[in-house]
């Protein structure tokens, strides 16, 4: 073509990305104007067609155009756009047929359809397909491969208000998507074998792939990709179901382009992968099976699109068979048939679209004698059908003859030698038969009676695409030498390279075996059709393979897998119940600890000291703990009291082993916890001991839990004993002892650690406390007691019964004198709190301890006077305490930053105050003050928020039942 040559780095990206850009443009363009979208698409498709045609001279002589855009170079993944003969042939098919389909769709689509979406998707598909065939990087190939699946999903589901469209789309995506993933892995393996993902390197790798031990894996995955995409047996069933797509989509994707992607990669990788027995057997016979199965099934279709779909499957099987055979001539035939099939099948789909459009049906039973109403369309469809049947002087004949030739001449062994030509002839017969069924059933016979409207010829422009395609069929079929030859040669050469054999495209090769096979097919087809044409028209389902409905199997597996199996598995290997969850966690932790530590536990020396007093303390603590565990179910108060005993033993142990700060904190936390749980106990249901007739399962579970608990106890005891009886490694602790006073300005090393050395931990920790307090507060704000706890407590009700009307007074009397003492304790406890706060840096005490003491002072008043009484007198704003506490801690840290030191860097000095003397002033004390404020705020907030529930007398949850969920089932 006399066009100026276009720079590769512009042309190839343009070819690949213009469709995507146009797609986004169409989608984003405002309005749903049919004209605008269609025009943009048509123009883009035209540009692309011209561009691809114009690129022919550049590749005609076996050159390869490459344009590379770096994407992820370190992983060997680049956008390498590579145009050689094969890619060019496909690019032309994609762009030109795409253009024709767009023209056709202009008239086919109804104005009610969302046209912009249609065109955007069509453009996106075009881009994906071009990207696929031009991929110069095999990972990129897998990417575009999957893109075509995704876009085709959306196109098949275009009329998604129809259930069959949704199902067809989903099935197509799942089948081809699975294949795509397999292909991706195959590409990974091939890349691994070759050492590069660049197609050039792969194609130049010679026998590396077939010789690799990984070849079988790579091949199987590769074929899984190719076969699913090209609807090869047994994955063929998605394609007929994809016919729910609008007919232009069927014409484009499901005849001309996407389904060809499978045979495209078979061709693409043919040079480096075919030379293996595995390839031959799998590919050839999958192809042959598909060829026959498709043709056979097509014969029994009532739906014209179904017929064409199975015909497509059959023809794809033909191409696959050719590629499987592994001879160069067979490869040539395959490439040739790819092009031929695209032209005649696309035109047939469009013709069916017109019939559908004009008659409102595609059912061959309702259609008849249409040649009178649609003479032009009928002529075109008849010619295209003839090409499909392999009638001489049409393109289909040429490639089919080549196919017959190859099957006849291919001679590795007897089985192959017989099965291939017989199968091919049989399939040829069947294809002739279904072609006749199509032509005769639709265009001949009496005028149709069951149509709702009288069909007319469509607008001429709607026929034009078909005319062009049929013209090509004729031109190629009659004068292949001057029409298709150079293009085919370029494509063939790009695949076979030096292996390119001599082949002839002439129409007449003499009277030879292939011709005999053709004649048998022709006559045989007619013989099959003529006597049975009525039966073939009316038959419901396919004889022999009726039960083999892939779709139904697929749907059932999908439904069962997603519903029953998945749910069963999720139930079997997971649980919603808490107890098993905790069991698993603890069991695994124990198992992990034992597995990791048991073998190298080291020696356990006998104890060398025993303190009987501590022994007594732990006799108390241990029995308390065990009894608490035993009582927790029915005697909650007892259990709490016993827990207090264990806590006290813990507290004493801290004191015993030189941890006074811990003992203090433990004691106070213990007290606060007791009050807290008691506050909560009011809202728990009454429990009365039940007779001891536990079911066997529950008892077994209990034994199991006892065993696990015992093992955990043993494990922790052993680990701690082992550590305690060994000398400590030289660690960080000496630093703190050595520097607490010198550098931290305090003698209580633990406190200096808390507010200085590890002050950051403390800051986090008080934040935790604050956060928990906020959560508790928020949760209690909307607390609803259970209905059985909403009343006043039983004790108070009984008292009312016992002494009516006196409850308040009794309570008053009951508490009068103790309350007085408790009120008087308030200032005392506050002073003690201040004392503990001030001394913390040097002696046991500090912000935490003082904070809990302070909050207990408040709680004591609540205990004594009740909520209303206290809040009439004291206004505690716990949230502000929390806020200020955090702020103080934060400011102490930030203060250091302002002075140029890292966050939380402390400073201390001894201030000389007149009359008083030296007073230590450490910034850590301010930090500790923050801790104090926060602890007060958080503890008080939690306790008071809980206490407030008693005076709220809130609404009971569940008093108004939730309404029936409207439409909930539909959504799920």
């Amino acid at each position, binding site marked *: 073509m006399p066009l100026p040559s276009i720079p590769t780095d512009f042309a190839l990206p343009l070819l690949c990305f213009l469709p995507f850009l146009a797609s986004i443009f169409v989608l984003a363009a405002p309005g749903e104007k049919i004209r605008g979208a269609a025009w943009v698409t048509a123009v883009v498709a035209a540009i692309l067609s011209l561009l691809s045609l114009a690129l022919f001279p550049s590749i005609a002589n076996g050159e390869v155009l490459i344009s590379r855009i770096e994407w992820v170079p370190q992983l060997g993944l680049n956008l390498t756009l590579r145009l050689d003969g094969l890619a060019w042939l496909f690019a032309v098919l994609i762009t030109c047929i795409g253009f024709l389909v767009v023209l056709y769709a202009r008239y086919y689509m109804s104005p009610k359809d969302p046209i912009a979406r249609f065109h955007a998707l069509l453009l996106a598909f075009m881009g994906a397909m071009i990207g696929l065939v031009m991929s110069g990087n095999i990972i990129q190939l897998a990417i575009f491969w999957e893109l075509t699946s995704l876009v085709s999903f959306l196109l098949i589901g275009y009329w998604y208000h129809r259930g069959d469209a949704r199902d067809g789309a989903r099935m197509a995506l799942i089948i081809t998507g699975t294949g795509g993933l397999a292909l991706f892995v195959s590409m990974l393996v091939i890349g691994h074998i070759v050492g590069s993902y660049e197609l050039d390197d792969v194609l130049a790798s010679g026998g590396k792939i077939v010789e690799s031990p990984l070849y079988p894996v790579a091949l199987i995955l590769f074929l899984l990709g190719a076969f699913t995409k090209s609807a090869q047996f047994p994955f063929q069933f998605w394609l007929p179901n994809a016919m729910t797509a609008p007919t232009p989509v069927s014409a484009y994707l499901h005849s001309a382009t996407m389904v060809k992607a499978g045979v495209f990669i078979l061709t693409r990788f043919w040079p480096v992968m075919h030379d293996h027995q595995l390839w031959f057997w799998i590919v050839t016979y999958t192809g042959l099976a598909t060829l026959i199965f498709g043709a056979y099934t097509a014969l029994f279709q009532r739906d014209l699109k179904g017929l064409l779909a199975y015909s497509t499957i059959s023809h794809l099987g033909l191409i696959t068979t050719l590629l499987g055979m592994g001879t160069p001539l067979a490869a040539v035939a395959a490439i040739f048939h790819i092009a031929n099939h695209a032209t005649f099948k696309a035109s047939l789909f469009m013709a069916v679209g017109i019939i559908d459009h004009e008659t409102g049906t595609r059912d061959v039973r309702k259609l008849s004698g249409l040649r009178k109403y649609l003479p032009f369309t009928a002529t075109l469809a008849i010619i295209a059908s003839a090409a499909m049947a392999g009638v001489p002087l049409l393109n289909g004949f040429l490639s089919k003859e080549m196919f017959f030739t190859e099957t006849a001449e291919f001679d590795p062994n007897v089985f192959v030698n017989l099965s291939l030509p017989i199968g091919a002839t049989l399939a040829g017969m069947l294809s002739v038969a279904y072609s006749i069924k199509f032509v005769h059933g639709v265009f001949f016979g009496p005028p149709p009676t069951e149509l709702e409207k009288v069909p007319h010829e469509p607008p001429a422009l709607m026929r034009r695409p078909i005319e062009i395609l049929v013209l090509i069929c004729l031109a190629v079929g009659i004068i292949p030498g001057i029409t298709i030859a150079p293009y085919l040669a370029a494509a063939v050469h790009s695949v076979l390279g030096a292996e390119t054999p001599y082949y002839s495209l002439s129409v007449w090769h003499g009277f030879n075996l292939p011709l005999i096979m053709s004649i048998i097919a022709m006559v045989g087809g007619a013989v099959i059709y003529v006597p049975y044409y009525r039966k073939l028209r009316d038959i419901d389902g396919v004889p022999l393979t009726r039960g083999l409905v892939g779709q139904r199997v697929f749907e059932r597996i999908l439904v069962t897998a997603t519903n029953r199996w998945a749910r069963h598995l999720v139930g079997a290997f997971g649980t919603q119940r808490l107890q098993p969850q905790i069991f698993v966690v603890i069991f695994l932790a124990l198992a992990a600890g034992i597995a990791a530590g048991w073998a190298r536990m080291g020696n356990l020396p006998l104890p060398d000291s025993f303190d009987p007093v501590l022994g007594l303390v732990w006799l108390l603590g241990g029995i308390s703990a065990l009894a608490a565990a035993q009582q927790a179910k029915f005697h909650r108060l007892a259990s709490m009291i016993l827990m207090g005993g264990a806590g006290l033993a813990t507290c004493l142990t801290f004191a015993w082993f030189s941890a006074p700060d811990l003992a203090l904190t433990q004691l106070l936390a213990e007290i606060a916890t007791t009050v807290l749980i008691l506050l909560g106990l009011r809202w728990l249901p009454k429990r009365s001991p039940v007779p001891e007739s536990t079911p066997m399962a529950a008892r077994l579970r209990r034994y199991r839990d006892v065993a696990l608990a015992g093992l955990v106890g043993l494990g922790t005891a052993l680990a701690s004993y082992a550590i305690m009886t060994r000398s400590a490694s030289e660690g960080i602790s000496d630093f703190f002892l050595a520097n607490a006073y010198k550098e931290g300005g305090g003698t209580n090393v633990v406190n200096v650690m808390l507010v200085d050395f590890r002050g950051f931990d403390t800051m986090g920790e008080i934040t935790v406390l604050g956060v928990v307090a906020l959560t508790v507060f928020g949760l209690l704000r909307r607390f609803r007691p259970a209905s059985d706890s909403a009343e006043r407590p039983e004790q108070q009700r009984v008292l009312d019964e016992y002494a009516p009307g006196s409850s308040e007074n009794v309570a008053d009397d009951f508490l009068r004198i*103790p309350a007085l003492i408790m009120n008087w304790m308030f200032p005392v406890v506050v002073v003690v709190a201040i004392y503990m706060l001030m001394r913390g840096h040097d002696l046991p005490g500090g912000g935490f301890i003082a904070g809990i003491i302070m909050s207990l002072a408040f709680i004591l008043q609540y205990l004594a006077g009740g909520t209303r009484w206290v809040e009439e007198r004291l206004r505690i704003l716990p949230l502000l305490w929390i806020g200020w506490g955090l702020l103080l801690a934060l400011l102490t840290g930030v203060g250091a930053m302002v002075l140029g030191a890292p966050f939380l860097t402390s400073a201390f000095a001894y201030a000389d105050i007149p009359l008083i003397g030296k007073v230590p002033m450490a910034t850590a004390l301010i930090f500790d003050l923050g801790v104090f404020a926060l602890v007060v705020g958080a503890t008080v907030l939690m306790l008071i928020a809980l206490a407030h529930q008693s005076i709220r007398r809130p609404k009971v949850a569940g008093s108004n039942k939730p309404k029936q969920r409207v439409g909930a089932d539909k959504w799920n």
Partner: protein
Amino acid sequence: MIADLPLWLSILVSAFVVLGALLTMAGCFGLVRLKSFYLRIHGPTMGTSMGGGLILLASAIYFTLTRERLVVHELVIFLFVTLTTPVTLMLLARATLFRDRVEGNEGVPKRPEKAETPASP
């Protein structure tokens, strides 16, 4: 380590400690041995009164001597214990009394008849 005290003082401290512990233990044993709650309520007060007092006194003496300054910390503890123990005991006793009356148990004084409404709160 325990400091070395003059013998008579260490005997004194020892005696106080042992006697205090004995009293406290006796009180605790009372919890076990006595038959009714109203009797048991008297046990712990031995520990909070004289038992505890003696041990605290021993501690005060000991630390005053070893630290060579007046240590009266223990007084604070004694005071706190003395003030707080009755609070629990009174509440507990009152609660028990109430429970016994409601349940109609034997040997519990009846609820006094309310003669008139209380004067002023």
